[in-house]
């Protein structure tokens, strides 16, 4: 059994020192997780499929709630439907959306584990879904909830399904593993990777770190830990940031930078790590002509 390791503790410790929270629901059926690519768009929270009650993750203060989907006050129908935002210590805001209803409370102060109701049945599918996200007010960024939530068991390593090298000149992509030779030039690296966890193997999540090594030297690295906005555009990654529209392709592939290949033998290695520290490596030997 492998639990979220030292690596995770280090990252979460950097983001929020000495801070512990609880899960907002007993369900671990995460339909969509932080960093999931939805047609080129980055999902910035967790979406649970659950009929269980929803609880506050920590003590805090009700910052804002909205309980009228149709109200003309805000100028648009609220996609988060009935939602509530609670501000905790360290300027962390937890957001709970798609609830059955949110009532006005006598006191704005709220304890850890206070029931917030149940998720609302969604139009069309009839599923009850909870939208949950964490926003770091101080750094103006969304944080991967799993970095702060208590760990859950995960022994499954991510799966690298495909790696493509797409030439800049628009010619056909080189699928690594299928092809052992390619022409010299500049290529864009695209990965197709999925991850699952023990609680629900049928649900795919997003790995935490993607690394590419060329002849043993780290060439590029992408970390799915935070999401923030600069000049109206979404950027992902705390240490090194990338524009989401550059990284997330509409077909689900993930861009991991450009690589310039010159004549000769080259060894390209991909290392993908999930939040529990489970790793998957794929190595490809390529002859560049």
């Amino acid at each position, binding site marked *: 059994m492998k639990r979220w390791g030292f690596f995770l503790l280090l990252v979460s410790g950097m983001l929020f020192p000495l801070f512990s929270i609880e899960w907002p629901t007993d369900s671990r059926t995460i339909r969509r997780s932080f960093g999931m690519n939805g047609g080129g768009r980055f999902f910035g929270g967790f979406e649970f499929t659950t009929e269980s009650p929803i609880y506050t993750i920590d003590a805090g203060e009700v910052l*804002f709630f909205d309980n009228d989907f149709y109200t003309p006050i*805000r100028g*648009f129908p609220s996609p988060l439907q009935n939602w509530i935002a609670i501000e905790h210590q360290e300027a962390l805001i937890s957001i709970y959306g798609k609830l059955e209803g949110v009532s006005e409370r006598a006191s704005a102060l709220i304890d850890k584990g206070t029931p917030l109701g149940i998720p609302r049945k969604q139009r069309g599918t009839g599923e009850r879904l909870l939208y949950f996200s964490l926003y770091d007010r101080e750094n103006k960024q969304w944080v991967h909830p799993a970095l702060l939530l208590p760990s859950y068991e995960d022994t499954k390593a991510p799966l690298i399904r495909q790696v493509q090298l797409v030439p800049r000149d628009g010619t056909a992509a080189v699928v690594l593993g299928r092809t052992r030779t390619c022409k010299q030039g500049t290529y864009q690296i695209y990965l197709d990777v999925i991850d699952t966890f023990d609680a629900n193997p049928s649900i795919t999540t997003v790995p935490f770190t993607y690394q590419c090594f060329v002849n043993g030297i780290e060439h590029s690295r992408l970390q799915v830990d935070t999401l923030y*906005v600069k000049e109206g555009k979404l950027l992902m990654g705390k240490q090194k940031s990338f524009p989401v529209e550059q990284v997330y392709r509409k077909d689900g592939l993930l861009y991991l930078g450009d690589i310039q290949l010159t004549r000769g033998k080259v060894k390209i290695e991909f290392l993908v790590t999930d939040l529990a520290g489970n790793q998957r490596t794929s190595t490809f030997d390529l002859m560049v002509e």
Partner: protein
Amino acid sequence: MQKKNIVGYSVIPLFVIFLYILLASQPIPEEVSLAPHWIVDLTALSAQGPETPPSQGVVPFKSGSFFGYIGVDGKGGGLLPMNGAVTYSRNWWIDFVDPSRPITLRNPSRTIQTTIEQVPGYPFFLEDRLFFIDEEQRSLFRYTEEGKFLWSYTFPGICTGLSSGTNRLVAGTLEGLLVVLDVTNGKELYRFEPGGSRRSLILSSAISKNDTYIALVAGLEPQRFLVLEQFKNTYKVLYHRYLSSNYRRPVWCTIVKDEWVLYEQPEGIGILHLFSKKFWFLSFPEKYRSYRIKKIGGTEQQGIVGVLLSQEKNHALLTIRLPDTILGIAPYEAGETDLTTVQDTFYLSSDTRFISFSFIEGR
């Protein structure tokens, strides 16, 4: 000598009276009378949409399970099918189920204008323009009526409110940022963080039709009401007021006639005249102080405002002549109700009735 004194004594009072008339007099207030136009029985309308859109235009209405359009003259109305959440403007409507399905933009006569296969979120209209907001309430997308993507903008936090003027759009966010965008290209023109409160957030924001004024309710402990005025390419604070309220939900804030700001307050409404910076608090009649403001509709020419108050199935339409004269209050019961204003005419819908009225001013 005595004659001189008599003249002197009579001239001084006359002069004082003249001064009083000149400086302190006020015009005789205009009489305001209600002019009802028509009442339509919604249950008698056909489920076909307006047969022929009237030349003067149509008014949309939604009430409970009904949605439809009716001519401004009360004729040619019709009900329209509603499967999901209907979003509408005076010229377009969309029956929307969820973002995974294509949407069809139609006009009031049900004619299809365009179909958008892949939608980026939830559709809505502001000033007859088509927008989408993504499911995390973070990104805004503008499309043309032909279904062509124009621009997108992502807010640094969750968007809590939007308002559109003629060329500009103002948005507030959960973490307390106000952003002004150019509605034609989505470019950020101005940003403002009010601060000054223990917790920052924007509860409500409104921009005047002429894009000159922005009003907002922001922050917690203390909550603040601010008005910004356009100054060259930027905005500067014109008016500021600490509020006794500490709302933690969306609140009403609206600009009427590019001249007045009305904003929600406990048991009443705050009213600010933008030119004189004079402030009034209009207290609701006692019976309606626990009611919530459902909608505020202002006339374009007259300084008359309708405030729709609701408490479950009990509603009341409060009409105000700005700044603070209550013209009347009409209580009624209904499951659903809505208020719309077109120029100087009010349109009020309930479960089964749709009425139109205006006010006539004259001495």
